[in-house]
């Protein structure tokens, strides 16, 4: 192929980007080492100078990589595999940003970017802790940048470069024998339609910022072990841990909201391995924060705090390994495609695991230990118990999520549980109950010593909560008494923390962060409980559809067949698939909902536009549409649509001999013959000079509307003419074909429009009180924010 000269390529940007990757890799090694030696030789200023400059060089290189890659995507340089694979010409700019992190390389780049930003912040704030903390941070930067290298070292390909040329990736394709191949590569593969959603523009950066921040408390903990300083690092590390918990939590819930708004699995959480993998580090981080606070107030539980803080970052690395090594295979809907980097990812994980274990072991004897057990009637005791419950909870989640890893390690043949949700819920629900109650109990108690009043206070809160639980139980119309437990735990958590919050409202609100966060958590629990316990699939057919008698009707028939224009009764709604309309690559199916009241009258109506994208590569990609009400959501998506449409013809012709007052039954509704009208105005029809012209006055009743129709029948010189009447909305046609004077009847032929080619199969779910989930989360995030403010001002006070 050497003889071929390729024309039209923009090699400059790829070369620039790739060089920047190499520069950033080398500069991160240099920075990490120089920070290491700067820590070892505190008197020699040259190391810290070198470290600083190489870190600045690294930052510049990272920005250059991002700039080059974005320019390649933005300018549609499809000679680059990344642009070709993840973007296309028709994408709007905000989705081009999502293209950026659709691939593994881009999402690593995002992580690298955040880590660089965090480094720049630390450079200005870490003060005496700068050297050891940055040495660890830059080591992580080395590992992450190595994922983008795409360089062969001794037959092992290290990393995967986003600047690889298409013709090199697919060098066997004959098209690349031609120098002008680019003129034939007209468009890229486009962005995965599931990611064409505005949440996908902001969810990944938030999540990755959360992931990236976990390295800071980790680095501080390592630095503490390294310096044998078991005290001072906690103070600056705590606000970072809180930031990390806030951002990672926000990122996770954004992912849930994205799933709820734009995926058709019907919910915000599915216990998918990828979701679990990001949840577990968060839970451990929360446990770690609690134990850090315990240690700072009582001086106990130091080792546990260090282990938890180290683990949260290691679990982020484990999550990275799980989602990017391809090991999850079929068990997850949204893991990345395997780039053959599992070995490298494993090394990344193991380096940090070994570093943590070795340092821990080395300093094991020196680390401070608790002098005695905690007293039971103290806040720290119950906080500690709560943290342990969080650890158990995350242990259970990561265990089941790791089934594919056990298969690989032990050659087992396990598959994820058939009832995944049930499996996780039976563990996580009791955990949530304990946690909910503990948030109330621990907060009612003081640190170290308590008077009997504290217990009395808990008793009062518990009593109030119990009454409220019973009220809420009926207000939410929950059915099973099993839910009482969780409902009580959530209510107790909210009530107790609200009680604690009130005095703060007048004073320094910054001090109330913990109460606010725990109130949010309680509300979140309540929302999770009510929206999932009372989640109701309403798309169960109740009228019309002729079920094939051979089929045993299962309970799980959750999809409804809707012919265009034909109303169907579904729960308390009359629904009609009205029409579809095309917008860009998406097809929107307008579904009209009419809510009926107890009398069967229409209360109110609304339209939903679930969207289906018939993607040439992925088939039907359904995006739901949801009507949000204060107390519930009506969630709708199309589960199947016809491939192509056929022109409407009329079928099911039926002949009816009727006299006034008689009823004509059709599949689409019924009609009553009101009377026969002989004073019809013939001139409206045409020039014919009828001797007789009769009109059949029909009232047509469909499920939700009444129409008038008047087919006509005329006689002129012994020849008869029929005029049909159409009821377009009801898809019905009536023809008046004969008069039978003997029986005093007339003949009407009814027929129905063939709409079999125009239908959607739809699923609809009502989620009650799902707003509590979002509200609880937002309150919790506000609580984190207040706590961060408090800890940051405590830092400044010194």
């Amino acid at each position, binding site marked *: 192929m050497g003889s071929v000269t390729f024309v039209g390529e923009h090699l400059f940007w790829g070369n620039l980007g790739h060089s920047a990757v190499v520069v950033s890799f080398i500069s991160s090694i240099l920075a990490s080492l120089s920070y290491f030696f700067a820590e070892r030789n505190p008197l020699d200023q040259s190391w810290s100078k070198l470290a600083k400059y190489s870190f600045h060089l690294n930052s510049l290189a990272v920005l250059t990589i991002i700039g080059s890659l974005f320019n390649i995507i933005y300018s549609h340089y499809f000679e680059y595999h990344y642009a070709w694979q993840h973007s296309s010409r028709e994408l709007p700019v905000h989705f081009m940003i999502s293209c950026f992190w659709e691939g593994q390389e881009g999402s690593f780049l995002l992580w690298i970017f955040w880590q660089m930003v965090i480094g720049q912040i630390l450079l200005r704030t870490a003060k005496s802790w700068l050297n050891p903390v940055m040495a660890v941070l830059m080591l992580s930067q080395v590992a992450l940048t190595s994922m983008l290298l795409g360089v062969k070292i001794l037959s092992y390909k290290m990393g995967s470069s986003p600047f690889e040329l298409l013709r090199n990736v697919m060098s066997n394709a004959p098209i690349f024998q031609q120098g002008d191949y680019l003129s034939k590569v007209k468009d890229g593969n486009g962005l995965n339609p599931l990611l064409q959603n505005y949440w996908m523009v902001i969810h990944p950066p938030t999540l990755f910022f959360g992931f990236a921040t976990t390295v800071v408390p980790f680095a501080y903990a390592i630095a503490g072990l390294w310096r044998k300083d078991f005290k001072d690092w906690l103070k600056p590390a705590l606000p970072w841990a809180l930031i990390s918990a806030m951002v990672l939590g926000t990122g996770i819930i954004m992912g849930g909201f994205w799933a709820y708004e734009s995926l058709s699995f019907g919910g915000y959480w599915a216990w998918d391995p990828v979701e679990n993998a990001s949840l577990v580090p968060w839970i451990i981080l929360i446990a770690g924060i609690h134990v850090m606070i315990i240690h700072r107030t009582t001086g106990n539980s130091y080792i546990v705090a260090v282990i938890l803080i180290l683990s949260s970052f290691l679990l982020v690395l484990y999550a990275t390994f799980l989602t990017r090594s391809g090991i999850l295979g079929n068990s997850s809907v949204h893991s990345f495609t395997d780039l053959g980097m599992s070995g490298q990812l494993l090394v990344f994980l193991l380096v940090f695991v070994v570093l943590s274990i070795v340092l821990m072991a080395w300093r094991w004897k020196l680390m401070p230990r608790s002098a005695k057990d905690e007293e039971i009637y103290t806040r720290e005791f119950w906080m500690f118990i709560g943290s342990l419950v969080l650890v158990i909870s995350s242990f259970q989640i990561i265990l089941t999520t790791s089934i594919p890893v056990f298969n690989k390690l032990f050659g087992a043949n396990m*598959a*994820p549980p058939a009832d995944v949700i049930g499996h996780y819920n039976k563990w996580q629900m009791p955990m949530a109950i304990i946690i909910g109650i503990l948030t109330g109990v621990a907060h009612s108690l003081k640190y170290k010593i308590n008077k009997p009043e504290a217990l009395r206070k808990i008793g009062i809160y518990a009593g109030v909560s119990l009454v409220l639980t019973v009220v809420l139980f009926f207000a939410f119309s929950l059915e099973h008494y099993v839910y009482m437990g969780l409902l009580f735990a959530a209510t107790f958590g909210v009530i107790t923390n609200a009680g604690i919050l009130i005095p703060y409202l007048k004073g320094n609100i910054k001090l109330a962060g913990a109460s606010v966060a725990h109130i949010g958590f309680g509300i979140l629990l309540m929302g999770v409980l009510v929206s999932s316990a009372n989640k109701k699939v309403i798309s169960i057919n109740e009228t019309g559809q002729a079920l094939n008698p051979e089929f045993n009707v299962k309970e799980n028939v959750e999809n409804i067949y809707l012919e265009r224009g034909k109303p169907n009764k579904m729960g308390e709604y009359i629904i009609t698939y009205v029409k579809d309309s095309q917008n860009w690559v998406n097809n929107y199916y307008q579904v009209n909902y009419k809510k009926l009241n107890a009398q069967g009258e229409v209360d109110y109506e609304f339209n939903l536009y679930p969207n289906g994208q018939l993607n040439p590569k992925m088939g039907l990609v359904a995006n739901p549409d949801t009507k949000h009400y204060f107390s519930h959501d009506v969630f709708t998506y199309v589960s*199947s649509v016809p491939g192509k449409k056929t022109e409407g013809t009329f079928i099911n012709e039926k002949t009816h001999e009727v006299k006034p007052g008689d009823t004509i039954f059709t599949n689409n509704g019924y009609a009553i013959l009101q009377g026969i009208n002989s004073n019809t105005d013939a001139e409206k029809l045409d020039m014919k000079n009828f001797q007789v012209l009769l009109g059949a006055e029909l009232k047509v009743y469909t499920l939700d509307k009444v129409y008038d129709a008047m087919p006509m029948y005329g006689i002129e010189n012994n020849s008869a003419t029929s005029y049909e009447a159409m009821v377009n909305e009801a898809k019905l046609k009536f023809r008046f074909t004969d008069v039978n004077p003997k029986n005093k009847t007339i003949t009407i032929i009814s027929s129905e429009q063939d709409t079999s080619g125009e239908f959607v199969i739809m699923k609809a779910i009502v989620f009650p009180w799902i707003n509590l989930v979002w509200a609880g989360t937002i309150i919790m995030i506000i609580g984190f924010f207040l706590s961060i403010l408090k800890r940051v001002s405590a830092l400044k006070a010194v």
Partner: protein
Amino acid sequence: MKKSSIIGLIIIALAIGAIVSMYGDASTYEGFEVAASKPEKEFHVVGVLNREKEKYYDPQKDANYFSFYLIDEKGKESKVVYHNPEPTDFARSEKVVIVGSMEGDHFEASKILLKCPSKYNEQKVGV
């Protein structure tokens, strides 16, 4: 006994409980023969679609009935019933993973996972 020892024991007990429960609830990848011998258990069956036999889906009659024939990795064939609409792209799938249990003459699938030849990374340049 110290409080911390009691707590430690409870933690260990719960951890063992989690492992046992993971092991007990985990499904396994099996063929139709094993599934038929244990109709009370749910299994994952990996196989390919038998394209010679008819797959049935008529949404006008029943939008929630889809049936097809699957040949598992040991070469045994069974009818599979899925009480949901036919997944789009089903015909193009290379490999099918079904989750469910045997019910008389057919396998009742509660979940279908498809492995398509080009999930999204078509390694082919359209000319």
